[in-house]
């Protein structure tokens, strides 16, 4: 019970911290919208991919900076009795809530501008962006301890992979590749939704494992031999197992999961037919 309270306290204080960064919060909301609109009107099309890029930058950026800002305090909290996993869990709880709310609002905005050919795919894709972006930002914060370097890694990975063709093998196995493919499904291109979701969630798990391992390495303290010894807890085996399973899902041959691209026109017609038959 005290562990849950520590997780909630961490989430609460991070929430207060985030809400007080008003300008940053405004930018986190405006950035994906501005990026989406600029691409949408300059290049035409649905602009969903650029929306996904903008959203993943926003959420991953919030995760990265919140983790880096709390770094001086985190080791002290661990020294006082918090477990590294509790701090991370509190952060994930708050950031995923923030990310999902932002994602839902942004999905509504994009839907309002361009109705998707496959609405559920758009919703799932944007949900997947939020789910993957939080551990992505936390993993970068754990592995790259400085703000500038971390930001460059974030911009680099998201920018490069979202600009790769969605049917490419390389793009398929990158963190936001599954979300990218789902965004293409929403635009009328054919990919199997289930495997995309599985791979996306596997990336989220893998990044979370990396974040936990990296974070533990940075914030753990030496528990001295005590005159009154305390029992030790171990969760490393579970962490390794989760990471291995995630890698297995990500590495599963993508070619066997792909379906033939369907024609956007045919897709639209099929949907129109279905709608008229319902009427």
């Amino acid at each position, binding site marked *: 019970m005290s562990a849950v*309270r520590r997780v909630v*306290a961490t989430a609460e204080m991070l929430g207060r*911290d985030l809400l*007080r960064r008003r300008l940053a919060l405004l930018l986190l909301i405006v950035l994906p919208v501005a990026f989406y609109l600029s691409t949408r009107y300059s290049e035409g099309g649905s602009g969903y991919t650029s929306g996904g890029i903008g959203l993943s930058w926003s959420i991953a950026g919030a995760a990265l900076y919140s983790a880096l800002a709390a770094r*001086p305090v985190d080791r002290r*909290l661990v020294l006082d009795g*918090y477990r590294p996993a509790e701090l991370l869990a509190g952060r994930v709880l708050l950031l995923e809530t923030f990310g999902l709310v932002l994602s839902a609002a942004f999905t509504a905005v994009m839907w309002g501008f361009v109705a998707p050919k496959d609405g559920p795919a758009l919703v799932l894709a944007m949900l997947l962006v939020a789910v993957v972006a939080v551990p992505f930002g936390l993993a970068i914060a754990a592995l790259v301890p400085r703000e500038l370097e971390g930001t460059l890694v974030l911009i680099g990975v998201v920018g490069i992979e979202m600009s790769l063709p969605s049917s490419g093998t390389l793009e398929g196995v990158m963190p936001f590749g599954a979300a990218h493919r789902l965004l293409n499904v929403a635009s009328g291109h054919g990919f199997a939704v289930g495997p995309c979701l599985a791979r996306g969630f596997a990336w989220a798990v893998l990044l979370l494992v990396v974040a936990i391992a990296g974070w533990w390495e940075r914030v753990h*303290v030496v528990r*001295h031999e005590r005159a009154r010894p305390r029992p030790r807890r171990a969760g490393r085996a579970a962490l390794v197992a989760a990471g291995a399973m995630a890698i297995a899902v990500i590495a599963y041959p993508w070619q066997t999961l792909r379906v033939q691209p369907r024609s956007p026109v045919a897709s639209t017609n099929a949907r129109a037919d279905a709608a008229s038959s319902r009427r």
Partner: protein
Amino acid sequence: MGGALSVRDVTKRYGRRLVLDHVDLDVGAGEAVALIGENGAGKSTLLKICAGLLAPDEGNVTVDGVLGYCPQEPGLLDLLNADEHLVLFGRAHGLGRADATEQGRRLLAELGFPVGRTEQTRHLSGGSRQKLNLALALLGGRDVLLLDEPYQGFDHGTYVSFWNHVDEWRAAGKAVVVVTHMLAELHRVDRVVEVRPAVAVEA
């Protein structure tokens, strides 16, 4: 001799530079010890090893009781206020919101921190930040206090008050280790340990 804090044969290197060479230190319950020494001698390193923030290359540390560590640089969240820090740190010791706030405010009041201030810590003076830093190290009731120059930025009254508190903590049975450059106050502690580069010698 064993004690609340026992350091045995601790050696620490930063790269090829030997900082601590087979250091022993014992601090008993109800004892106050001052660590002195020139800059870079390894005082803060020794304290960090005692706290568990650094691992020694050799040797071991034994702590009997709950440890409180006050770092030289206040590790605070700039956008949270004092009460929020108390709640966050209090949770580490199983304190509820009300208990943490009440106990923390009492500690802050003793240190001369204007209790009830709601501004974020980034707006506090250096001395006030340091008072909060020290109060967080005391929150929850600690048996062994490791204080790394905790009075930086204190005004004269608070500085005097701090050393009075050291007396009180000692009288309450706590083991207190203070890293200090204030040689005029060394009569306030039971023992003085001088840390010299790569060697610790009882003064």
